[in-house]
């Protein structure tokens, strides 16, 4: 019983949040990693792309809610996601046509593309704020928990509770499905392979009859879908605020890179590395050890390796250590 209590506490405060957060990061990192893998640049606008896609979804969600549509226990926003994706895709494709294509034809260095994407980031930044404003938006409805703390306690009779949110569940499931699908798509399908070929050697892809514009378009479409899904799931779980999405960029990049740029599996692994190191390393073991150790040995202090002030620092230290041993990430990513 004591052991179970300890474990439930650990699960509730470390394992479940970290897995959910890891999946959220992974979904974002998938978009980043895909752009890097196919179009060969680090897209700084990704955070704001996520924000834009989410915003479109939110607007449609409000409309649906206004119409009285609901998904029962699931959030209505799930219904609106396709519209969000469509809106996001429209914006991205327009951007590609007006902005990126020019540089692609010029064959500029990746770093120029990075700076260009920062320009795009500023613009998306403005557009989103023009339309929906800067405030925090909460658009989650439906059942918030798959199982809540109190229910869990009554159900199991344990002292410690455990909560799993609906959105956490959806996020984890989605992340797994999306990664598998993307992996399958890139490695098994004709289009996927042609995308990899394009990223590897553009000229030769041309000589094989691959239409680069099509490859680019498909890539952006997938990115739009990924960004919107990632953004919406994150927003459902926490809340939607444009500035936070912009700030998400950093851990997302960290996840994509530590996993190995260009690798979908890496994005997942990277997301978990970052999430677990943020949530896990600074965890204060007092409560758990209190259950696991005999009364006499139960700790007085917090048994915390490092205070949470340093949680970002710690996660970056872990990232560094990983990179020192695997210089191109866990899954042998690309490097330009």
């Amino acid at each position: 019983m004591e052991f179970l209590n300890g474990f439930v506490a650990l699960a509730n405060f470390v394992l479940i949040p970290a897995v959910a957060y890891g999946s959220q990061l992974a979904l974002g990192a998938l978009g980043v990693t895909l752009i890097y893998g196919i179009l060969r640049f680090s897209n700084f606008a990704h955070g704001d792309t996520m924000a834009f896609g989410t915003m479109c979804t939110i607007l449609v969600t409000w409309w649906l809610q206004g119409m009285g549509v609901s998904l029962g226990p699931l959030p209505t926003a799930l219904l609106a996601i396709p519209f969000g994706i469509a809106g996001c895709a429209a914006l991205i494709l327009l951007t590609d046509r007006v902005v990126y294509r020019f540089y692609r034809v010029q064959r500029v260095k990746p770093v120029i593309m990075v700076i260009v994407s920062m320009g795009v980031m500023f613009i998306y930044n403005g557009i989103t704020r023009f339309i929906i404003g800067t405030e925090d938006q909460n658009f989650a409805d439906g059942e918030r928990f798959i199982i809540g703390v109190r229910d869990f306690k009554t159900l199991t009779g344990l002292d410690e509770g455990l909560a799993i949110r609906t959105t956490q569940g959806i996020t984890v499931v989605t992340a797994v499905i999306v990664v598998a699908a993307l992996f399958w798509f890139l490695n098994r399908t004709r289009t996927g392979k042609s995308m990899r070929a394009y990223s590897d050697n553009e000229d030769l892809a041309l000589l094989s009859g691959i239409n680069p514009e099509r490859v680019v378009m498909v890539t952006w479409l997938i990115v739009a879908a990924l960004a919107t899904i990632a953004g919406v799931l994150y927003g459902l779980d926490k809340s939607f605020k444009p500035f936070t999405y912009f700030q998400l960029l950093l851990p997302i990049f960290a996840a994509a890179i530590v996993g190995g740029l260009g690798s979908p599996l890496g994005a997942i692994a990277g997301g978990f590395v970052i999430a677990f190191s943020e949530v896990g390393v600074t965890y204060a073991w007092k409560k758990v050890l209190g259950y696991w150790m005999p009364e006499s040995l139960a700790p007085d202090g917090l048994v915390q390796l490092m205070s949470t002030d340093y949680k970002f620092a710690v996660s970056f230290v872990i990232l560094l250590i990983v990179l020192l041993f695997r210089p191109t990430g866990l899954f042998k990513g690309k490097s330009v």
Partner: protein
Amino acid sequence: MGEPYLIGEAMTGGYGKGADILHACTIAVERGEIAVIVGPNGAGKSTAMKAVFGMLDLRSGHVRLDGRDITKLSPQDRVAQGMGFVPQTHNIFGSMTVEENLEMGAFIRRDDFRGTLAQVYDLFPILKDKRHQAAGELSGGQRQQVAVGRALMTQPKVLMLDEPTAGVSPIVMDELFDRIIEVARSGISILMVEQNARQALEIADKGYVLVQGANAFTGTGKDLLENPDVRRSFLGG
């Protein structure tokens, strides 16, 4: 005899805004024949090939395939028209496996290409052993084999090869030339650049010597081989 199957006629052009590299250069190949281009380094051989394939903006001149003017067509459209090309450098997908490289060669084909794949593996047995290895990890000669294999997968009507034998061992080179002859016999036109010029000219129906972007000598393979000037200046005596 009418017009050649593929002809780049009086092509003039260069890279970007730079000076012209090609000066009214003409290259042609008949259906089912082998044409070989030789010349010193930097003569513009590769440039001429790229020009024929539409990877270069021509300032003047035309490219015609089977009587149709394709000067304005983009490279991937030319692929669709049945042209295949192996560039001199960067001719493989380094991060993809050997097999995926070959599949990419068959990208525009909608039919079942397993037969062709088997033929390619037959021709280059080493590739079959390494088919799940990333092409970038191969040795220089193996890469070259992948590159040629990829082009063969297209089953083109014209096959353009830029120095296909650079870096391959003698035994493979012989195999390759043999295969090229076979391919040509099946009605496919072959246009290739070679520095192993003597071997290449021996199997060539027609030979071009390019110097500084212009045609210097043209003739049958035999003619060129027997021409002492050509031998001395371009074929290493």
